[in-house]
């Protein structure tokens, strides 16, 4: 064996263990789910047979699937947008140097350290329209989780609370590498802070923003625990998202084949979104490198 081949083998040997574990623990279950999604698998009907894309065809006429998709889209759009806006605000504030900055950073980060099941419990307690602290503080008596108009926004608020720290953290990291001289140059060129933000901060931060969008969209589109604990999909199914629906199909009603098809479709939606992001992402990077 020549040094070159040994060298090449060495590279793959480094990747090997990780690849092996991922293939075993992540890939196999995914393949199994794919296989299930092509079957009609209903233990209580005693049915287990291959049906090709029948489950996927049925998705088209399943109104509940489409409304779950719509709720998921709504959730992703608003939670990610809000998280991005808030996160950016926090990051911009935390970039300033001021006494107690470290403590402020840590405090803002806190919600992210809470297990999501526990965070959902926090908010269930806060949103309680009878003795919840939110109505008490606002002096309102809104039925946060029980009113079809408010339930999804309430879930979004809870999600924003939980994940904005992650967004703020990544954006703050991104902000810190924008050279200070650029702002000085912009000031000399007569830009005010808003213009400096639009012309310097935003374009230079774009890759990080896209990265955040990618990770957050992936997560938000798979929202489950939070909604499951807060509303269970209700009222009137107005908060039922794709994964909540898939969960009910798989574990409440044992429709293994169809439930897997919903899960796989969710995955495909996320994949399509991510590919779109990655495409924009790569373009943004190329632009930045050309500069």
């Amino acid at each position, binding site marked *: 064996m020549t040094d070159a081949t040994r060298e090449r083998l*060495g590279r793959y040997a*480094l990747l090997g263990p990780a690849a092996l574990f*991922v293939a075993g623990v992540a890939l196999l279950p*995914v393949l*199994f789910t794919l296989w299930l999604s092509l079957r009609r698998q209903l233990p209580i009907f005693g049915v287990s047979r291959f049906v090709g894309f029948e489950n996927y065809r049925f998705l088209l006429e399943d109104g509940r699937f489409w409304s779950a998709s719509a709720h998921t889209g709504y959730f992703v759009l608003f939670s990610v947008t809000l998280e991005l806006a808030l996160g950016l605000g926090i990051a911009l*504030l935390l970039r300033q140097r001021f006494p107690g900055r470290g403590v402020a950073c840590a405090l803002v980060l806190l919600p992210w350290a*809470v297990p999501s099941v526990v965070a959902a419990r926090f908010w269930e307690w806060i949103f309680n329209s009878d003795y919840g602290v939110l109505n008490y503080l606002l002096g309102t008596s809104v039925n946060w989780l029980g009113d079809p108009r408010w339930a999804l926004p309430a879930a979004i608020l809870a999600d924003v609370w939980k994940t904005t720290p992650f967004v703020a953290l990544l954006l703050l990291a991104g902000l810190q590498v924008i050279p200070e001289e650029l702002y000085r140059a912009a000031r000399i060129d007569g830009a005010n802070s808003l213009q400096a933000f639009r012309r310097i901060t935003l374009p230079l931060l774009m890759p990080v923003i896209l990265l955040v969008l990618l990770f957050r969209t992936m997560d938000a589109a798979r929202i489950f625990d939070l909604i499951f604990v807060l509303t269970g999909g209700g009222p009137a199914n107005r908060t039922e998202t794709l994964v909540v629906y898939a969960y009910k199909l*798989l574990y409440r009603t044992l429709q293994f084949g169809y439930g897997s098809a919903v899960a796989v479709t969710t995955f495909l939606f996320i994949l399509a979104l991510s590919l779109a992001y990655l495409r924009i992402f790569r373009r943004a990077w190329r632009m930045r490198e050309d500069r």
Partner: protein
Amino acid sequence: MDWKQLLRWLAGGLLLGLFVSFALGPFIWQLITALKPAGQLAQLPPLLPAPPTAQHFVAVLGAPGFLRVAANSVFVAVTTMLLAFILGVPAAYALAKLQVGGRQVILAALLCFSMFPAIANVAPLYLLFIHLGIRDSVFAVVITHSVFALPFTVWTLTNFFQEIPNDLYRAARIDGCSHGGILRHVVLPLAMPGLVSVGLLVFIFSWNEFLYSFTLTATERSRTLPVAIALFAGLHEIPWGEIAAAAILATIPTVVLVFLFQRRIISGLTAGAVKG
């Protein structure tokens, strides 16, 4: 300082204050809940517990197996972190510093696996562990957690490692380092801030994870904290005070870690986040 700047500082301080209270509010409320006597839980006002009671904390800490479960959680989170490093560091190194064919594809594929809804693959995963004979063991949980932490680990570490100048890596090879030696002597010491943040994130992920831990464990021998908290509820009865107390207790370690390492996390992610 002129008045305009003063105004800006004040506005900034106010906004930050708002953000911080938004972040902290639910915590404080949870703490208040945990300190309220059981009879006052479903009442508002009073806003503050009168008098505050430690009964819920005592109940949680005294619950049979709670400490065992807490120890499991620590073990699982720490071991997950180590395993994620043992698997992820060489892979990230290979992807960052060696011209591995199909690098983009490997990274994209890794990301793909983390997009799959967990509820769908938890059942097949469980079957797998039954076949391996490690059901209801902390190791099933550790392996699962570390594999699902791998995409994040590899992505972020790859970025950190890319920040290390190529010349250093070449110098180490000339000086006689093997790949392992380069990792040990050059890459790891230099990427320490990155490793700290990734390690912390993986720790928090594992500490907080519920679905896999719940499915893969059956007894207190292997159960982790979030699963134990889910067990606090009775059939109909939900002891809010105890859940709040347990939640506060379960959050403390991560909060302490965040406080200890917040500077490191920020500086660590700086390097990693930028290149995506």
